[in-house]
């Protein structure tokens, strides 16, 4: 008898059919709550994709961002199209983007323990960091580059001979953007392997 008068647990309450709210109300509340939660989640994720977020850390602002904003084609160009950090370093598709965000959470640890909190430490680790990023881009067939550029949509006739030749070779040899286009937004690290270009 005593068991019957005891208040049900929160999980049991969740499982019990509602005797008070209509199905429509529950559905509407659920949909609104879902939109708010999902939208809020994505808004936070989008916020972490903003340049201002990336350079909120002095490690990024004083090193890679400074180099990128000196005079690189993705920062300033004839047509005024700018690619910010996330355009090159975070995939656009949701799945790969979430994976990248999860991977990036290790950077928080790096921030806490100060892995690259001085210029000297950054320079010492630059090669490792760069090689890691090149490997990531190589593995995904330069996905972020291809969000805007594809070999198929290039008019090689409008390119300089050396670019035309290189892109023709890339098609022929099934190469990907990052195979050649390393160090186009940041300084190249010292000690690069000679085969890296």
């Amino acid at each position: 008898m005593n068991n019957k008068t005891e208040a049900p647990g929160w999980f049991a309450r969740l499982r019990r059919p509602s005797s008070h709210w209509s199905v429509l109300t529950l559905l509407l509340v659920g949909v609104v709550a879902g939109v708010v939660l999902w939208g809020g989640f994505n808004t936070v994720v989008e916020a972490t994709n903003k340049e201002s977020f990336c350079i909120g850390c002095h490690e990024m602002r004083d090193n890679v961002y400074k180099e990128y904003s000196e005079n690189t084609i993705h920062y300033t160009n004839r047509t005024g199209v700018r690619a910010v950090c996330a355009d090159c370093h975070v995939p656009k598709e949701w799945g790969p983007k979430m994976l990248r965000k999860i991977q990036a959470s290790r950077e928080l640890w790096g921030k806490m323990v100060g892995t690259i909190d001085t210029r000297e430490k950054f320079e010492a680790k630059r090669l490792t960091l760069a090689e890691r990023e090149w490997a990531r881009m190589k593995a995904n067939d330069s996905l972020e580059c291809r969000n805007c550029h594809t070999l198929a949509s290039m008019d090689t006739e409008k390119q300089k001979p050396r670019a035309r030749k290189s892109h023709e070779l890339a098609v022929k040899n099934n190469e990907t953007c990052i195979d050649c286009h390393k160090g186009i937004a940041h300084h190249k690290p010292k000690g690069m392997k000679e085969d890296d270009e």
Partner: protein
Amino acid sequence: MSHILHPTRIAVAAAALAFGALPAFAAAPDWGKVPAAKITVFYPGVSPIEWITKGSEHGGARALRKGETCASCHHDETADMGKKMATGQKLEPSPIKGKAGSIPVQVQAAHDGANLYVRFSWKQPAGGADKMDKDNAVKLAFMLEDNKIPGANLSGCWETCHSDARTMPEGKDDKKTKYVKDGSVAGGKYYDIVQWTSKGAKHDGYIADKRVMDGGKALVDAKGEKKGDEWSVVFTRKLAGGEGDVALASGKTYNFGFAIHDDHSAGRYHHVSLGYQLGIDTKGDVTANKQ
């Protein structure tokens, strides 16, 4: 004029064939009838073969490894490249004020069965730098290679240009000039070089494990003149030759490149061509047909 001399040339050619290295009679062709290839020589800064082949420095190293020539990518942009280097924007730690970035040169070639004639003409660019070579306002040299040195068909004279040569920033030895890795005259791995200087000297040598500027037997004459601000230099060279000379045969192509030391310059401060092909009675970037 040429048809009057023609029998003489045939006789000389026949004699040369019959008796070997007889002095060949030099009769330059009518240059007005010989088509000219336009090749722009450019200021190369510090870009030795070690830089050219280092992928992390030079993106084209990848294409070079795939068998592409330097000219296939750069032929049309040598003027831009030269400007970048002459002004110190790239690959030049000590730019010379007023140094021309490039010089467009007309190159003509012909032969008469005994001699190869090569004519270079160009307009003197502005200058006025300190004189490194006080004796010579201008020097011009060209090199030939008989497809024996790996890479010579792609990168031309760059196979002889190294970071440890004299006047290079890394060059410690003032006596160290051009050389070919594993070069040897006996093994055929050498570049034949001839040079004309505005003071009036002419040199016929080779570049193998080291550079030797004289002793060749192929060069008959090298003459240059300046009319107004136009230079023209004509080399007369036997098709055959001795040790360190590339023997030229009809129907074959040879690796060819040339350089101008302009404005009293010396050492690495020259203007150079990319690597090209000289064809003897066969199509090359520069073709020497029989006249």
